[in-house]
């Protein structure tokens, strides 16, 4: 379960999140929609622990524990996963080597025995096959020279391997064609479970045709303006965000 309580975040002198509150229960898929520049990516980065943001007030809890004082790797070990909008290219680090380091770092943090290479290879191959991630991609340096679609599939592969309790998908549909969108969405859908919460951040309703949310939240001007069911996404698609931008400098 993910709980965000009255979260205020500033970058420099500018307040970006202004008291955001949202709960995503176990098993729930919540979608956050909102116009550009409203702080959606800031929210995902703050939850994951990126430097450069100042939390002035509020809490973020994963399964009841406030994670805001934890380093990014400690948050990951507690079951948080952020699928990046722009997965970072790391030339020189082989994808397989990275997957092993990632899995074993989290296993160590939880006091579990490390995976040996043959077991790891088997695990990765099976998960990769489901997502259409080729062996050739696994041999390449991490995300290097990958297409937009390949990068997003690699993010979902990592999520499938890590089995987080809270998954945040930041604009996962950006840069995807319809086929890739379907593969990525199927990957996410197959990970839905009563023990797992998802927060899906997106501009467009399109992604939500593939990943059906339980709740939809409109974010604008640094707070959740309105919450509702899946029908809210359709309404936004029709009317746009203009109703929520009143009062913002025109």
């Amino acid at each position, binding site marked *: 379960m993910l709980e965000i309580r009255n979260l205020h975040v500033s970058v420099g002198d500018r307040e970006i999140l202004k008291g955001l509150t949202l709960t995503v229960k176990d098993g729930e898929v919540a979608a956050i929609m909102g116009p550009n520049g409203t702080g959606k990516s800031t929210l995902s980065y703050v939850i*994951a*622990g*990126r*430097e450069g943001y100042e939390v002035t007030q509020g809490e973020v809890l994963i399964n009841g524990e406030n994670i805001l004082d934890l*380093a*990014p*790797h400690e*948050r*990951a*070990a507690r079951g948080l996963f*952020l699928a*990046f909008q722009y*997965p*970072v290219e*790391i*030339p*020189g*680090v082989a994808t397989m*080597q*990275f997957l092993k*380091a*990632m899995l074993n*770092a*989290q296993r160590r*943090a939880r006091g579990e025995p490390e995976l040996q290479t043959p077991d790891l290879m088997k695990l990765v191959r099976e998960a990769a096959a489901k997502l259409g991630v080729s062996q050739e991609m696994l041999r390449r*340096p991490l995300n290097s020279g990958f297409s937009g679609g390949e990068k997003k599939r690699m993010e979902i592969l*990592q999520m499938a391997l*890590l089995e987080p309790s809270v998954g945040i998908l930041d604009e996962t549909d950006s840069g995807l064609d319809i086929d890739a969108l379907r593969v990525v969405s199927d990957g996410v859908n197959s990970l839905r479970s009563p023990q797992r919460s998802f927060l899906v951040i997106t501009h467009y309703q399109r992604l939500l045709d593939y990943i059906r949310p339980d709740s939809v939240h409109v974010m604008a001007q640094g707070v959740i303006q309105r919450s509702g069911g899946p029908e809210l996404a359709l309404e936004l698609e029709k009317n746009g965000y203009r109703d929520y931008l009143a009062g913002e400098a025109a």
Partner: protein
Amino acid sequence: MIKLANEADAIYEAQYQTMQKSGAAQRRAGSYQAFLERGLPNRRVESWHYTDLKAALAKPAPLAAGDERKPLLARTHDSIRLVTLDGKFRPDLSDLSELPVGLRVRSLHEALADDNPEINVALWPDGAGAEDAAVALNGALMQDGVVVSVSSGATIARPIEFVTLVGASLPEAIFTRSALIVGAGASVKAIETAGVLERETSNATQLNHLLALRLEHDSKLDMLSHISGFGGDSVSVFSLNAHLASHAQLKAHQLIEGGGLLRRQLFAALDGEFAGASFNGVTLARGRQHADTTLFVDHRQPHGASHERFRTILDEHAIGVFQGKIVVRPGAQKTDGVMQSKAILLSDGATMNNKPELEIFADDVKCGHGAACGRLDQDQLFYLMARGLPRGEAQSLLLEAFANESLIDISDYRSRDFVLERIGGWLAERTPS
């Protein structure tokens, strides 16, 4: 007569008088004269601009007396080991029994006594290396070393390892000169290893070492140098002087682990058509270490190729230097030269001086260079940490990847694993920043 200006000069004069009696008097006199004309280089000498050797050697240590101990040396590589300890070639510590056919090994003393023209030309190369004051001082004061010749057409499967060890517990000055002559069409692997013998070894050793490589027509040499710097007050100059004839191919990799003030000088003369040399390396330095790699590649003939890729990682208050100069002479058309040096600074206190240069006097060449300094990419670091890697582990993974960029051409997987393991060990010792 040049007037001796200071205490250091007087000490070197006395040491020269001593070494004059041990053979090659004329050669030594020529080198000493060249040294006197230049003096120890300070920052006003362009090629030494970032490393003030004159200040570092203001008090020259006494000449090494040699060491009669017979230490048990751990074996790191499956190699034909040739050991120089405290300035003296040690046949008893070397693998001289059952040398493969086509390989001849002798001490520098024997080689000087032979006065063989082929060996002399290897031991006293011409060009930029010969004009360097530290190399000239080495020529005047060289105490011993090992000279290896490989017959034409021979292929030696096991690497020939030149081991330079320091074991004396008191500060000493050590001057060694070795040579590897690879005959026409021969193919050889070599390893150059330098380090201290044990923990009690003095931390103020002054070492000046030259390894001269002479690659004859169509010969091939694959080489790995692993230099572990000596203690905090040590001053060491490791010169490599390579001379390549036509179609000769040299592939050289180096791993420098800093220690005190350390200068690595690489001189290469591509003196025949279609000669090719590559120099790649990783330098690691921390604390107050000063690690300088200075490279000079001289393209004298057409169709030559030289590729250089260097990576430097500096932590704490370390100072790094990379100076690289590629010269293409008027006749050296169709030269292909690429030089790249990148550094990562892990602390605000570290300093990198990065200076690549091209001097091109031919009009039909392809040459380029690039240099960069910076800190670790923060986006990459966050990405890895967001996947669960603790900061130190994430930094190490990125730094290994960075270093690996200059190691991708090492063809021998054991050498490559060895270097990666050393880098991993160095990284494991650091506190994440």
